[in-house]
């Protein structure tokens, strides 16, 4: 790692004053003069160790008071501070009782050790794991380069990559927890350097590669996530989450699915269906939602919804298997709700 100084932020305001860039900006156009945030630090240190990020200063936001609270109110829903660790969410009984899909997603994320270190804010803000993006030897779009190595039909190693919205960058978002959060219609609370607070839905938090190749989310340099809010479920809210991985012990998602339904009896009244590792950002499948809404939850309808989700899939040379994988997984997730 390069030499950097360490600023121990005492408050959100203090932290915002110290920081001058984002990891994404710095990866896109290196100045080597960046002061960037670090919370759990897993993704930031990974970039620094690879030599792709050479920060001048690391602003440690991990110990800022009050960002590590988790609370649940039957009316308001759940608030999870950005510094709450994945392990804390995993062991939280309210998450398990009211947000089953999130509970499942968190429990299948990373390893026990990493769950003790990683924070929720860092998890949804981490960059994708495309091995070309992560390689110092491949100057790809996301790093200000002129090509996407993964999409090359003859040479691209794209078995883990996107099958939807893969027109520019073909990476898939690294956070499988984000899949579940988006399905719950969670929102992200962001404070900027002027002390202004905004609440954006997960759908609006993520930025597609087509919109801004440098970014995967809307966070600007002088902005910080303080909490993630999940709306309160009703007594008819049911959810499921399934993640498919090459290696069950721990692995990056090959395809994960979060499904949150409002049901009456065995009928889906409204559906929220999000696919992870399908597109460069977590992908809400309107097609699948429409296909299952006001339908009985059964094998036939679940399969139809899953097929509808894959209608827009345009696989690359090596990831065609993701289509049947998603169909099987989404079908199974929907049926878990019945």
């Amino acid at each position: 790692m390069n030499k950097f100084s360490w600023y121990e932020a005492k408050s959100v305001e203090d932290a915002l004053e110290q920081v001058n860039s984002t990891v994404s900006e710095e990866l896109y156009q290196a100045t080597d003069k960046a002061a960037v945030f670090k919370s759990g630090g897993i993704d930031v240190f990974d970039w620094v160790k690879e030599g792709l990020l050479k920060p001048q200063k690391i602003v440690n936001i991990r110990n800022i008071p009050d960002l590590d609270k988790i609370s649940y109110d039957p009316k308001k829903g759940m608030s999870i501070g950005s510094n709450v660790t994945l392990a804390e969410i995993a062991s939280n009984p309210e998450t398990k009782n009211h947000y089953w899909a999130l509970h499942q997603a968190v429990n299948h994320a990373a390893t026990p050790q990493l769950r003790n270190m990683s924070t929720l804010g860092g998890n949804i803000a981490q960059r994708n794991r495309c091995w070309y993006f992560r390689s110092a030897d491949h100057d790809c779009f996301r790093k200000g380069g002129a090509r996407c190595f993964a999409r090359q039909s003859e040479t691209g190693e794209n078995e883990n990559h996107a099958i939807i919205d893969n027109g520019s960058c073909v990476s898939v978002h690294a956070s499988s927890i984000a899949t579940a959060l988006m399905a719950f219609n969670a929102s992200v609370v962001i404070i900027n350097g002027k002390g202004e607070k905004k609440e954006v839905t997960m759908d609006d938090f993520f930025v597609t590669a087509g919109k801004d190749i440098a970014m995967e989310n809307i966070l600007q340099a002088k902005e910080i996530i303080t909490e993630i809010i999940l709306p309160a479920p009703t007594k008819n809210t049911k959810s499921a989450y399934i993640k498919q991985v090459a290696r069950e012990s721990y692995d990056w998602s090959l395809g994960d699915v979060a499904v949150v339904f409002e049901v009456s009896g065995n009928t889906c009244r409204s559906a929220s269906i999000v696919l992870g590792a399908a597109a460069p950002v977590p992908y809400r499948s309107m097609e699948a939602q429409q296909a299952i809404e006001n339908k009985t939850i059964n094998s036939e309808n679940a399969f139809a919804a899953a097929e509808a989700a894959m209608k827009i899939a345009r696989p690359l040379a090596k990831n065609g298997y993701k289509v049947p994988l998603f169909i099987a997984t989404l079908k199974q997730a929907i049926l878990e709700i019945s």
Partner: protein
Amino acid sequence: MEDKNQDSKFKPTKGLSRRSFIRGAGLSTAGSVLLTTNAFALDYREHRSAGEEFGPDAMTIKMKVNGLVKSLSVEPRTTLASALRDHLELTGTKVGCDRGSCSACTVYLDGKPVNSCMMSVFDVADKEITTIEGIAKNGELHPVQKAFIEHDASQCGYCTPGMIMSCVHVVDNSTDLNLEDVKNATRGNLCRCGTHPHVFKATLAAAKKTI
């Protein structure tokens, strides 16, 4: 066990052993540690460090490891794994992947298993570190350690410290441990030799105190 005088370790000695040399090598990569005079104590008890900037050069900090307060001269970029191995000579903690993917570097931070390779030593602050060297109490091995010996639960041994940290944690924090629990606890621990079946057996045996 406590290193009372950190500086004495850095004096050149003849006939360096491999271990003591590695410690020295780590320091040399960490910059001109010995020349640092403006040492600032990031004391885990006395000093709240918030609102201050440290580094990038090495400085002396204090850290509680295995129940003892140690001071060491480190940079913000010094990982906890490097601080333990290269500065405090606690070489039981291993570095396998250096990216949080193999968990050979597992230590406890306030009792919770973490990857010491993926955190700065500055992340420790007032939290307490437990390493593999701190698992045996008063010279008595932990039941998991005894069971690892009894059931031949190591081959090359390089994953063993991290594996034991994971297994001790699950044994000490569970009741009615079953095979699934042990597998879950060691999900992040790479053993390239493939010695897992004996690790599972040993840990279950330790939990049942049948060794």
